């Protein structure tokens, strides 16, 4: 939550929060832009919330000119932090040019990847360009679970990619999506992340949307399984304190969205075609970077959250949690 110190004094306590928790209210620009640079992917994961996969690039993805215009706007607005995800961002033909542009203008950039293109050469290049971190999805601590989840994926190749990052000296984050067939490996997965040299480990509840709608019967965890899952994470958080940060969100989607209705995060989600979403877990689009500037979209971001359709969607979720199945049927505010 954005807290402001007031009065003439500096104050001995600096209010602290996170970008996702920082309200957008009085900020002149977002603090974080999470950009899905393409919907194309080399894998076809069972749980992919974007329904990415081979041949799944949107027909209307931003042109090179549009991509670099958006990047220029973001850096002109001093957006301090960007992430490139997908799909698989590293299959974007201008991926390294985009990285070079952001890092060259002193932006802090995180890459979210499945790790399959993290060759020693690419890792060395990411290091020399100065990316802030590379987050690799490792949904499993074994070949069996990882390869089951990440269709067309290869556990050994992803692992090799993380090792290449470590060798190159690129800061590593690991992301883990739990399912009924990999949740039991969470403790080993956290240990593996630490062994691989990660400084952060992220996980939470897997969402019923995208590919997961079709595969839910193969993925869904019971609440009892989630209880055990989070219990292990609490233990691991303490075990790795000071060495690796273990982040996890126990909060259910409904609680999170109810909170967000009143406290929109200072974060814009940019889709491969330039549409800007309020938040990933809602279908609402609040702007189009092909037609509006980033500044214009940000200026009406708060107002867009107040649209009654947003609150209604969130409250309808209480009745029907499976409404998240329709997140890709965008609703223009």
């Amino acid at each position, binding site marked *: 939550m954005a807290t402001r110190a007031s009065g003439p004094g500096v104050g001995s306590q600096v209010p602290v929060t996170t970008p996702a928790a920082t309200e957008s209210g009085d*900020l002149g620009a977002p603090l974080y832009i999470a950009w899905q640079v393409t919907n194309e992917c080399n894998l076809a994961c069972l749980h992919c919330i974007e329904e990415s996969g081979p041949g799944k690039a949107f027909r209307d993805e931003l042109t090179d000119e549009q991509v670099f215009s958006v990047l220029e706007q973001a850096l002109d607005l001093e957006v301090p932090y960007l992430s490139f995800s997908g799909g698989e961002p590293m299959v974007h033909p201008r991926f390294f040019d985009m990285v070079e542009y952001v890092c060259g203008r002193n932006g802090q950039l995180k890459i979210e990847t499945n790790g399959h293109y993290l060759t020693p050469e690419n890792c060395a290049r990411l290091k020399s360009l100065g990316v802030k971190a590379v987050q690799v999805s490792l949904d499993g601590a074994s070949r069996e679970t990882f390869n089951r989840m990440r269709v067309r994926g290869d556990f050994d190749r992803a692992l090799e990619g993380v090792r290449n990052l470590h060798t190159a000296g690129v800061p590593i984050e690991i992301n883990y999506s739990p399912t009924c067939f990999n949740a039991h490996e969470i403790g080993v997965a956290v240990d593996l992340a630490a062994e691989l040299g990660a400084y952060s480990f992220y996980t939470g509840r897997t969402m019923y949307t995208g590919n997961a709608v079709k595969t839910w019967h193969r993925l869904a965890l019971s609440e009892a399984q989630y209880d055990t899952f989070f219990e292990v994470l609490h233990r691991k958080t303490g075990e790795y304190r000071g060495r690796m940060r273990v982040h996890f969100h126990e909060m259910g989607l409904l609680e999170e969205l109810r909170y967000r209705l009143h406290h929109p995060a200072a974060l814009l989600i940019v889709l491969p075609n330039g549409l800007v979403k309020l938040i990933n877990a809602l279908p609402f689009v609040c702007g189009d970077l092909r037609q509006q500037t980033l500044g214009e979209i940000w200026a009406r971001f708060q107002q867009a959250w107040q649209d009654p359709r947003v609150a209604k969607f969130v409250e309808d979720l209480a009745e029907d949690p499976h409404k998240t199945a329709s997140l890709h049927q965008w609703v223009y505010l």
Partner: protein
Amino acid sequence: MKLAKYVKFREEKFGSVLFETRSEKVYTLNPTATAVVRELQAGRDELDIPGRLKERFRDDSGAIEREVVAFFAELRQKGLVED
């Protein structure tokens, strides 16, 4: 003293934000704290900053100097600055 490698600073109408991008923590600063960070960004010596701000804010009580020193300690303790 300067801002640490992963810390970004941006001025806002209310003051400024410091964003530590590794821990992904955001620190919201009031105008006076903003003035301190601005001085650091300008390359001023840590030892000169309390006096400069005392003068700028016309503070004869010494409160600003004390608070600036405490603020430096806090920035250090949170890993937001490096020497």
